[in-house]
């Protein structure tokens, strides 16, 4: 049997995920649109997965440096994004 190309599989996942995103994001209350933005910013730094591969498994120093740079920048985002989102959500949930 002919194998399905990885691109088509990826595309399938991609399109379905856009639909999931579409329906989930429309449910987000407008008051929380800023936290939505900072949390999506944090999770888009999941690109760190690729950065880790470059920094940890490459042989060439230049590649490792690219990997290191990407790991560092993605970490700034992940930590920064989650911390600032937590700060905001705590404000919304403060007891008077």
């Amino acid at each position, binding site marked *: 049997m002919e194998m399905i190309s990885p691109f088509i599989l990826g595309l399938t996942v991609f399109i379905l995920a856009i639909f999931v995103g579409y329906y989930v994001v429309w449910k987000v209350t407008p008051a929380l649109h800023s936290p939505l933005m900072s949390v999506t910013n944090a*999770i888009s730094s999941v690109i760190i997965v690729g950065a880790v*591969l*470059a920094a940890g498994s490459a042989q060439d120093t230049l590649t490792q440096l690219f990997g*290191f740079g990407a*790991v*560092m920048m993605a970490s700034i985002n992940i*930590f920064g994004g989650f911390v600032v989102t937590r700060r905001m959500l705590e404000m919304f949930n403060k007891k008077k």
Partner: protein
Amino acid sequence: MIANFSALAYLASSVCFILALQGLSSAKTSQRGLSLGILGMSIAIGTTLASPIVASYGWIISGIIVGGIIGTLIAKKIQMTALPQLVAAFHSLVGLSAVCVAAAALLEPEAFNIGSVGFIAAGSLVEMGFGVAIGAITFTGSVVAFAKLQGLVSGNPLIFKGQHKVNAALGLGLVVMLLLFAASESHNLFWAIAFVSFLLGFLLILPIGGADMPVVISMLNSYSGWAAAGIGFTLGNSLLIITGALVGASGAILSYIMCKGMNRSILNIILGGFGGEQAAASQGPKEQRPYKAGSSEDAGFIMKNAKSVVIVPGYGMAVAQAQHALREMADILQQEGVEVRYAIHPVAGRMPGHMNVLLAEANVPYESVLELEEINRDFAQTDVAFVIGANDVTNPSAKTDPTSPIYGMPVLDVEKAKTVLFVKRSMSPGYAGVDNELFYKDNTLMLFGDAKKMCEEIIKTLEE
């Protein structure tokens, strides 16, 4: 076997991310959602670290530690008024790390299991090219957005002759280079793609005026997602694809909501040139029309004797850091038995939901902050509308004057309130460069001064 196991772990973290976004449907569930998001990220990083292809940990650990410390410190110290700049800066980092990962994948495809140098599949090269292009555009675009929001460069749109032609030519060149790159795997072409995309990012955001920043930020949010998805395709990693799609969709929806809030098409905003001083100047000098100015004593007296007050905050309130004084004023009014509520326009502030965060920071209860559709009908039964730091979003000519640049934009019907108190520094027009009819209405009282000082003075009057 191990590959299947990691794929399952990645699936688990994708589900966590979806639940994190879903948690934001209400303030109550949002914190649990955030914890799930952090869990998902930990699973993703842990799984990758454990994969056998990763041979050394020195670079990784130091990168995470350095980045983690920088990120945490910045996020803890940042003032909520500066949130839009912070988010723009964060977006730029996502873009740049996408570029770095794509470059690493090109230099050493073996490390990512996508072939070897000179023998990367054409499909992977297309994806890599897309990843680097979107990443690079996101990077420079976000840097420009950051500089504009931070006030490092003027918020006015920067336009030069033939701008659209240059951009179109660069875009076309980019597509041609992508195709050539996919056919040749030339490293020089890869760097050329990166360079042109960096340039394009600059040129795309420079002409967009300060008033459109909420759209720009949302758009860049979306781009950063697409960049992550592009890298996901290159590496054949479904977690990256799913997350990228979620973020991309989220940013796109926010952009749509912002555009609708301003009644402008996304194309119109991307083409740029709206807002800033040129628009105001082009209208030419106008005769000064009569308006009524009042003092803090007048304002205090009127509000004290009102039954209901609706506060309409805008970006001016954030600039003046007036949210705390404003809340104090509202508290005193409530003790006097006045019903106080807040009306938030979708594009108030410099990013979606910015006003809500600032009010939450000042301890304003979540329930008394209402969105445009929820409160617009109530203005007719409201005694006082207290407009502080907002302008264009209250302009009635958006409903009545088809020649107005903001015609058709949904606005808050503040003029229907019995009295309108309008806190403003001077009679200058708002960001859209349009004069506000509201200033000259009989039931409008202008309160000239800094938003914070005005609130403090009103508090003094109320306490007497």
